[in-house]
């Protein structure tokens, strides 16, 4: 009897993806949790370390590549999406993750984030949003709420914050998701979805800065409120939340807005609760815009793939070396002979 041996599956562990470098974030920083989730995700997906590249800008989050045992490129402030675009144009086979914070990606690098998303370059873009500048010691950031007191805004900040997820949707991103640093069950799942999506995948991760903005997201991430103040959205499932799964989101009659409805005994459908359709950009926009007292939407808000940019430019593989008849190139057009 012939025994068919299954193809060898690479067993990888999260720690295989940790580099030998000492991690230098502040004790208790949310970045540790994200790093752990990332290493677990890599192991679960058995990613080949030699084909995986982390590209980052500047800031606390941007130190991330040093702690991964893959290839890594710590670039300059705000420009990681542009550098990563070049990486993909040269070698589309590489699995490229872009890491940055809210200042890096929405302030100095806002332009590049816009363009990498609208071009749909096949990158996984992870924005660690802690609503503050950490590495420069606590100034307010473009996602800080109005009135944020910081060294540069002692009287409270005046300018309205940008919503990262709404910015991504407005830029034309085809994949927009949200996660919370400490939610270790959901975060790896979201990262896996982002990895599986061909094209630019944008993930906003709410990340706690324990030193300069501790507890910024407590109102929807604290253990005692999480079930009432978060809604984890899943494609094809009703938009239901609450400790007793007794609340849902429906369209507010006569408007284009979401409202909370109490589920009766007949269940969500009878209460008019919407079913999450992640290919619906309008619904994703409504979900991304939810703010307390409404629950904050977590999970894959939007996923509607389209052909990726680098694929259209260079195809599937490493760009080939320049080849062709140089003499013919020089002799294009009119030439003449001098005897």
């Amino acid at each position: 009897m012939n025994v068919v041996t299954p193809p060898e599956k690479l067993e990888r562990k999260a720690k295989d993806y940790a580099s030998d470098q000492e991690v230098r974030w502040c004790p208790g920083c949310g970045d540790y949790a994200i790093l752990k989730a990332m290493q677990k995700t890599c192991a679960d997906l058995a990613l080949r370390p030699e084909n995986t590249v982390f590209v980052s800008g500047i800031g606390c989050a941007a130190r991330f590549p040093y702690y991964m045992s893959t290839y890594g490129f710590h670039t300059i402030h705000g420009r990681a999406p542009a550098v990563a675009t070049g990486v993909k144009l040269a070698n589309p086979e590489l699995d490229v993750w872009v890491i940055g914070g809210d200042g890096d990606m929405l302030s100095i690098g806002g332009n590049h984030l816009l363009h990498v998303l609208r071009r749909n370059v096949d990158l996984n873009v992870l924005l660690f949003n802690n609503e503050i500048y950490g590495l420069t010691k606590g100034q307010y950031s473009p996602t800080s709420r109005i009135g944020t007191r910081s060294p540069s805004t002692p009287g409270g900040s005046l300018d309205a914050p940008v919503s990262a997820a709404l910015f991504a949707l407005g830029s034309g991103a085809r994949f927009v998701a949200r996660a919370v640093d400490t939610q270790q069950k959901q975060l790896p799942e979201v990262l896996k979805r982002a990895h599986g999506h061909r094209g630019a995948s944008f993930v906003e991760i709410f990340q706690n800065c324990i030193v300069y903005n501790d507890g910024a997201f407590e109102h929807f991430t604290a253990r005692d409120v999480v079930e009432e103040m978060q809604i984890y959205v899943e494609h094809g499932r009703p938009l239901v939340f609450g400790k007793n799964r007794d609340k849902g989101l429906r369209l507010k009659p006569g408007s284009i807005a979401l409202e909370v409805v109490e589920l009766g005994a007949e269940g969500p459908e009878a209460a008019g609760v919407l079913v999450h359709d992640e290919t619906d950009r309008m619904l994703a926009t409504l979900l991304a815009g939810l703010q307390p007292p409404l629950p904050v939407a977590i999970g894959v808000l939007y996923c509607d793939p389209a052909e990726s940019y680098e694929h259209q430019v260079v195809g599937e593989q490493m760009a080939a070396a320049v080849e062709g008849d140089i003499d013919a190139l020089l002799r294009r057009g009119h030439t003449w002979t001098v005897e």
Partner: protein
Amino acid sequence: MEGTSVLAQPRQEMESAVVRFAGDSGDGMQLTGSQFTLATALAGNDLATFPDFPAEIRAPVGTTYGVSAFQINFGARTIRTAGDAVDVLVAMNPAALKVNRSDLKPGALIIVDTGAFNAKNFAKAHYAADPLEDGSLDAYRILRVDMSSATEKAVESHGLTKKEALRCKNMWALGLIYWMFGRDRQSTVDWLETKFGKTPQIANANIAALNAGHAYGETAELPTGVRTYSVPAAKLPAGLYRNVTGAEALAWGLVAGCKLAGLPMTFCSYPITPASQLLHLLAGAKSYGVTTFQAEDEIAAICAAIGASYAGALGITSSSGPGIALKTEALGLAISVELPLVVVNSQRGGPSTGLPTKTEQSDLFQAVYGRNGDAPLAVIASRSPHDCFEVAIEAVRLATTYMTPVMLLTDGYLANASEPWQLPSFADYQPFPVAFHSDPEGFHPFRRDPETLARVWAKPGTPGLMHRIGGIEKDYDSGNISYDPANHQRMTDTRAAKIAGIARDIPAQGVEQGSERGRLAVVGWGSTYGPISRAVANLRNAGEDVSQVHLRHIWPLPANLGELLAGYDTVLVPEMNNGQLVKLLRAEYLLPAVGLSKVSGKPFKIAELETAIHAALEGREP
């Protein structure tokens, strides 16, 4: 009878002639000029051209600031510049006459379209009265032709609108000039048929206008002093030739360089005058395996190029001064992580937006010094349109051999000017194949070649070589982040030594003309090569002890340069800036070099250089 038939006269032979076509920026003067250039090259002349156009795409019609001009100098001898002064000016309107008059030779021929010489256009050009009638042009010969109505008449059977018909005016003027210099019209007929292949009506109308202009010359009774000329073929070395602009030669040189290196090319750029041409040309070279990327801004363009180099292609970016300024921080990153990168700067007038369409050489300091931190890179400059091919290959060679950014300086003049080029054979170029690192044994990303000090190039996708790099200082022995004081000193010294070591790998500086010692050396770089070499040749013919030294390698400078220049009593450095190379030479060699500055947006004239050289020989300030 006033005037005589030119048919009775033989063509007057000229050794060289300068013709300038000038009109509104919508009049098609650049196309007219390039067609005349092609026909002239095919006739066997040596030549040089200088397109001079406004920054506005279609400035208000008839205004002086909307005048676009194309100048060509062609001859039976070697031509080195587009010419100091104009023999024949074609002025399509009063503004074109006004702007270009000061560049005419005494007795020059001015051909005007009287159809455009009316009160409205005099007012737009700020002429108080008709300049053709007020005696102000008595020093010149004038040929007045109503080209507008002659063109309309010539194309009337082709069913064009009046506006379309008048657009053929430039071809009528070209036909007349073809007659005057005995040029064959066929290359232009072929070009029109190809260009307007989908609208044969337009092609035929333009051909009719071209023929009509030519026929007018043959049959009309022209005023005394208007005659035909012949400029015999130049004695050029035997071989196959083409006309080439600097932008073309640069694009092809970059393609050739990447092929010699065995690398893919990822060209990332953001549109900017006068550098955009390079992006257009390379976008058309996709069949050679070139990838082009029009980025969202200058910073993204260089960053994408750096990303491409990191991933194992050769990243190239291109811009002009203001765009290079934006790329500066990223250049520092490329220097710090030691990745190959070619940065092309087509210089233009500055500072700030400056003179976008005018030429200048004022970014030398920016190229050599303009970064935060001690951030050395290699800088090279092209001297002529066809030299851009050689310099582009050299830039790729240095970038890949030394794992460094290389700044390649051209300028607005070089990018747009054209000249005949004796085509090289690609087989004569020595390949310099890149070997990517693949051996995990003892690997770290900043392991260096002991000879070149270049670090290994280990690209993502290579098993066993996973590593992290970044703009933070790296440990010399492991490549890991290091804030160690002694290590930073060592890395800074190493980066400097690596670039300085390039001097051992470039040719010793030679002398273009003259002897290796003497009274005066004229030292130039970049596009001043043409006028300097003609001025030095003229003075040497007159028996003066003058030598010419022209630099390709600006940083590092050739190893023998200091010693060479010390052999001259005086060193004169003409530059289209306020004195940059001269300061570099003084700083490097403690040499009392004298500068000659011109920043008018126009190239040096030969006469200006001759005057300055005379002054320097006599020990006066130039």
